[in-house]
Every structure is written in C-alpha cells, then in structure tokens.
C-alpha cells in the first residue's frame, strides 16, 4: 500500500471548490484519483463523471441553459467541466459568471477528494481487520490471515481443495469471530453436511454449531449476471445499513469466479473481458468501501500439456487480487487418497513469494505433519 503523504491545506481546497457536503474530506475517494495497478476504480458512488446534464442537477442549471449547451455539443458533466468557459459563454451567449458558479458546484459534487497520507493510515489502522482462516499454516502464509479491504485469491487444479479451504474459512469466521459470512456458490459445490462436519470438529457445543450455521448465508449464482445482481443487492443492503437477519458482515467468499466467466471469454468478442472487469470493479469497491475481506477461487491452466501451471482468466484478472495462493495436492494418485495439500504464495504485497506450507484439508483441523518449509523466491 503506497502511502503518499500529501499535505494539502484546507484553504487551498476551498479555493478550488473541492469540499464535501459535510465539510469533511472523504478519504475513500483518494483511491479514485490515483491509478493503482492496471485497474483504477472509483471510490464509491460519488465519482460518476459521465452523468448527462439535466435540469436541477445543481442550482443555476436551467432547462434553457441545457438546451443551449447541448446545441453546442456539451452533453455530460465531463464535457462541461473540461471545456473552456469563455468560449462556451460566447458561443451559447450565457453569462460567464453563471457558468463558473455551475462548474464549481458540479466539481464539488462529482469529483474525488484527495486526502492526507497520515489520515489515510490512521483510517486504515482503525478499520482493517485480519480474519483467521482456521488453519495456522495458511494464516502464516497470508501474514496472519485475511485482510479486510483486499481481494485474496485461491487457485488450484480441480480437486486441489479450494472449496474445502473456503468452507474452513467460513467455519472459522462464523464460529471463532461470530461474524456473518456471505458465500456465493457458482459451482454447486457447497455441501452443508461437510461444513457441519468441520464445525463439529472445531466446537463441542451443539448450540454454537447451529448458531454458526445460521450466520453463514449461501447464495447460489450460476451465471455472471446473477452474481453481479447478488453483489449489487449486498451493496445496497450494506449502504442502507438495513439491520436484518444479516448481522455484521466481514467476509464474502466467492466459489468460484472462473466458473461464471470462463464461458464468456475467448472468441472474437471482447464482451467477456468487459464484464469480467465489471465484476473486478464491483469486488474491489465492496472490499474497500465496506471493509470486507473478499476471497475468490480460480482455476489454473497450462500453456501446453507439460508447461507450468498458471492462473486462469488471464492477465487482466491478475491485477485484481492482492494476494494469490496456489493449492496443489501432494502425490495424489488413483490408488491412494490423501488430504494433504501444499499451499504456495504466488502473489503478495507483504510477504516474499514462493513460501510454501503444508495443509491438511481433512477435518478442518490444524495438524501439520511436517514443519513449514520456507523457500525464498528470486
């Protein structure tokens, strides 16, 4: 997380007309003004910049003004704000002062607010939580757990244990932290009886197990639009702070993301890519705005039949998760069934990549049969 410290004085901001409605700087919107990685995402609902000009959008913007502006090719807020007001005043025969006033109000309404790096750090310290995954070796790999405000990805071949790890995470957050979990299942792989088994192995009390089960909400989404719809519903619910059966939500698990996107990628149309980035943006905004930890699972592919494994969904998706863990099974063959898995860190902003730990996905318990091996990456 690159913390840039900007000391911007309040009076300067007032001159620019960049003050929020409550008179406070909004730190979340910092993210929209600094491109991070290859995906720059808007900091929530305030940064819509392609809004069509409409009467009543702000005081001073009348219907006749809009007609005159439209006649000269200015249709959206961006067009208005980026045009030369003197020219516009001349061409549309409108008063220059009125135009400047309207622009100031529009900027205040629609632009993002920069913030001070130190303030940002304080905010993050108070709002970020680290959620345990239920398996100490995996926690060690992830630098003590799943961070809220970030997207973590688990990738692996079929049968490598991704769904099992997700179930373990859901059980641990629900049982240990008593927080609510939202589980979006797109493969039909969520088995409640397996989750119950894991809970039984971790907690003795039947009451606790039932309560933990009630805190995990499962939504089955089998195509990309249903998934987007479910995420949108979650966003509405969280922003309206409706206190319903959904209590304090801290984590969203999506198993799996590649199942709904794979059928759309490839071919001649770039539709699939566009909608994949929609999903990416939705996940990132959810994570950052509402301080949620988002866990997604992904498949792996190979270049050729003997090449190394690489994550599916391509380069564009690789910028979305901040942490990537690869799961592999250890010497599993048809004859010998095993619950041993090896998790290695493929991408992380906090730890050196290449670290490997051993995982037992058996009964969600934490027995490691050999000490974790630490192999330094390049």
């Amino acid at each position, binding site marked *: 997380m690159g913390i840039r410290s900007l000391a911007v004085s309040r009076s300067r901001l007032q001159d620019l007309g960049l003050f929020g409605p409550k008179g406070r700087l909004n730190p979340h919107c910092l993210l929209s003004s600094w491109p991070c990685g290859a995906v720059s995402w808007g900091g929530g609902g305030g940064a819509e910049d392609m809004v*069509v000009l409409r009467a009543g959008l702000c005081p001073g913007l009348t219907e006749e003004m809009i007609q005159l502006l439209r006649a000269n090719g200015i249709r959206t807020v961006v067009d208005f704000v980026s045009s030369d007001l003197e020219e516009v005043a001349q061409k549309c025969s409108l008063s220059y002062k009125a135009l400047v006033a309207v622009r100031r109000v529009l900027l205040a309404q629609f632009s993002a607010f920069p913030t001070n790096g130190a303030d940002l750090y304080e905010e993050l310290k108070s709002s970020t939580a680290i959620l345990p995954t239920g398996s100490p070796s995996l926690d060690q790999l992830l630098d003590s757990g799943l961070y809220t405000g970030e997207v973590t990805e688990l990738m692996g071949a079929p049968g490598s244990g991704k769904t099992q790890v997700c179930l373990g995470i859901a059980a641990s957050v629900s049982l240990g932290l008593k927080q609510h979990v939202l589980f979006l299942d797109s493969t*039909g792989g969520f088995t409640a009886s397996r989750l119950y088994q894991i809970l039984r192995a971790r907690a003795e009390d039947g009451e606790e197990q039932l309560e933990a089960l009630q805190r995990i909400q*499962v939504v*089955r989404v089998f195509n990309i639009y249903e998934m987007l719809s479910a995420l949108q519903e979650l966003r509405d619910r969280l922003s309206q702070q409706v206190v319903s059966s959904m209590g304090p939500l801290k984590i969203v698990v999506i198993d799996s993301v590649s199942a709904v996107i794979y059928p759309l990628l490839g071919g001649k149309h770039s539709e699939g890519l566009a909608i994949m980035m929609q999903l990416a943006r939705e996940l990132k905004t959810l994570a950052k705005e509402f301080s949620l930890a988002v866990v997604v699972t992904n498949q792996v592919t190979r270049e050729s039949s003997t090449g190394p494994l690489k994550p599916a969904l391509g380069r564009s998706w690789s910028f979305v998760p901040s942490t990537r863990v690869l799961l592999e099974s250890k010497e599993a063959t048809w004859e010998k069934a095993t619950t041993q898995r090896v998790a290695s860190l493929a991408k992380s902003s906090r730890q050196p990549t290449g670290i490997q730990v051993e995982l037992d996905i058996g009964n969600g318990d934490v027995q490691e049969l050999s000490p974790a091996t630490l192999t330094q990456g390049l």
Partner: protein
Amino acid sequence: MQREVGSLPLAPALRAKLVAAGFQTAQELLETGPCGLSKELGISKEEALEALQVVRQECPGDVARTAGGSGITRKCTALELLEEEQAQGSIITFCSALDSILGGGVQLTKITEICGAPGVGKTQLCMQLAVDVQIPECFGGVAGEAVFIDTEGSFMVDRVVDIATACVQHCQLIAEAHQEEDHLKALETFSLESILSHIYYFRCRDYIELLAQVYLLPDFLSEHSKVRLVVVDGIAFPFRHDFEDLSLRTRLLNGLAQQLIIIAHDHKSAVVLTNQMTTRIGQNQSTLVPALVSWLPRCAASSCHSKCRRY
C-alpha cells in the same frame, strides 16, 4: 438501484449505445422512460420498451427489496441447507460397495461423473440408475422419472427390460416379507410398463444436438416435474473428434457444465455423466486419465471417478 449499465444483461450493441450516450446507472435509464430512450439512442420504441423491461426485472423497486422477497437469487442460510440436504434422498445403485463410497447412493442436486475404459460397465450402471430412480419411496427410493440422453447409441432396451423385471421382483420379495399396506399399494403402480414409460430417451448424434438438448432441457423438466435423474451417456464423445477450435471446445464445455449444474440444482435431480478414458503419456509410464481433463472442474461436488472392474 445504482446498478451499472455495463452489468445488465442487454445486447452488446445496445449497451455500447447506452454508454456512448452517457447513461451510467439503471436508475437513469428508468427515469428517462421509453420515449426519451428511443430518441436519445436512435432505436425503435419497442426495443426501448424491451430494454426497460429487462432493467426492471434485474432491479426490482425498493419496495420489493425491503419486503425481503427477491426471487432472482437463490439464497438461504447454511442451517437451512443442511436440513434440506439431510432430508434429501439419494438414488441407490444396488451395489452396496458403490453406495457406501458415494455416501448412500447417487446424490440429488449434484453432478456425478462415471469414467472407465470401454466395456467396463458405465452404460449398464446408467441404465440401472434409470430404473432405480423410479423405486417408490416406501422401498427407499426417490420415486422419480429419468431422462436418458444417449450420444453413443449404446442404450439397449432389452437390457433395461431385464433390469426392470429384476427390480420389480426384488420389491415384490420385500413386500411379501413385510406385508405392509403402502408396500402393496405401491407395487400396483410399479410395473415393467410404468418403468419403461417413465424413462425419456433422447438420441443426440453430434455436439450441436447435445448442446441444444441440454439447453432445452429446463423447459422439458418444468413440464415433467417428477424427473429426478438426468443421464448423459458419453459426454466427451461428440467433442473429441472433428473439433479444430480447441478454445471454442473449452468454452462450450464450460457453458454446458454450468447449464447442467443449474438443472441439477433447480430441479432437484441427480445428473450422471459418463466419460471416456484417455492415455496420458508421461516420462516413464503412461497413465489412464479421464478424457477432456479441463472438464473435470465442472463436476464440482461429488465427482466420483470409479475405476470399475468387470463382474
């Protein structure tokens, strides 16, 4: 209601026009109305109306949402799911070893894949399941009907007749041993003719027919709501030969898999697929693995790769 225009299931050309015109959220679309929309985008009023209907469906008004009834997403708590799963039956295979590794039988709402070398008995097992799904509930079955999609042409009706006759005899023996009312009543309707008439057989000769059949299946299943088993015998066969574009094949298979998952879940039926085996030539030896390995992830929950032996 701040649903982005890009995330709505509209036609790509329409979506491009909307974005070019400056619309960002669904709310703006609904506020503009069909006449304004058709004027702004230069499309006909009918198209605008259709688009708005799609938008309205995707984003129900706030009233509907706060009332808690949102039929689009299938959601429940894990506890409710657990109760559902425990109450669900499974389709027995009449082979106790197989039933025990499957956890009671072929699970409903899940996809099960059976792979094996040629001649090992995959189609026989599928035919057995198509009969077993019809066993009445008092005998421990799920009392459902079966859909059999055949791509290889290996379905033998005379063999099904043998299996069905044996099954009816088995149930008759149980009824005689227990002498209960409902057993005898159930036996009246459980006969060879009824078994055969409740197996719906489809023959698909190539991958296009297979895809079409699977995509049309939900309509068929909503008319025949008692179907509890869908068998696709030979899922890999139509895709293995005559396919130049491999990425297209992967995409089609993934789409097919999602469709089968939806069918399994929405209609509470078990989906059973049979797959061929292929040889993976390694460095020292060659191993038999299921064909179309990239297909494997789709058989999410219970994918049972049974290496059957001949009896």
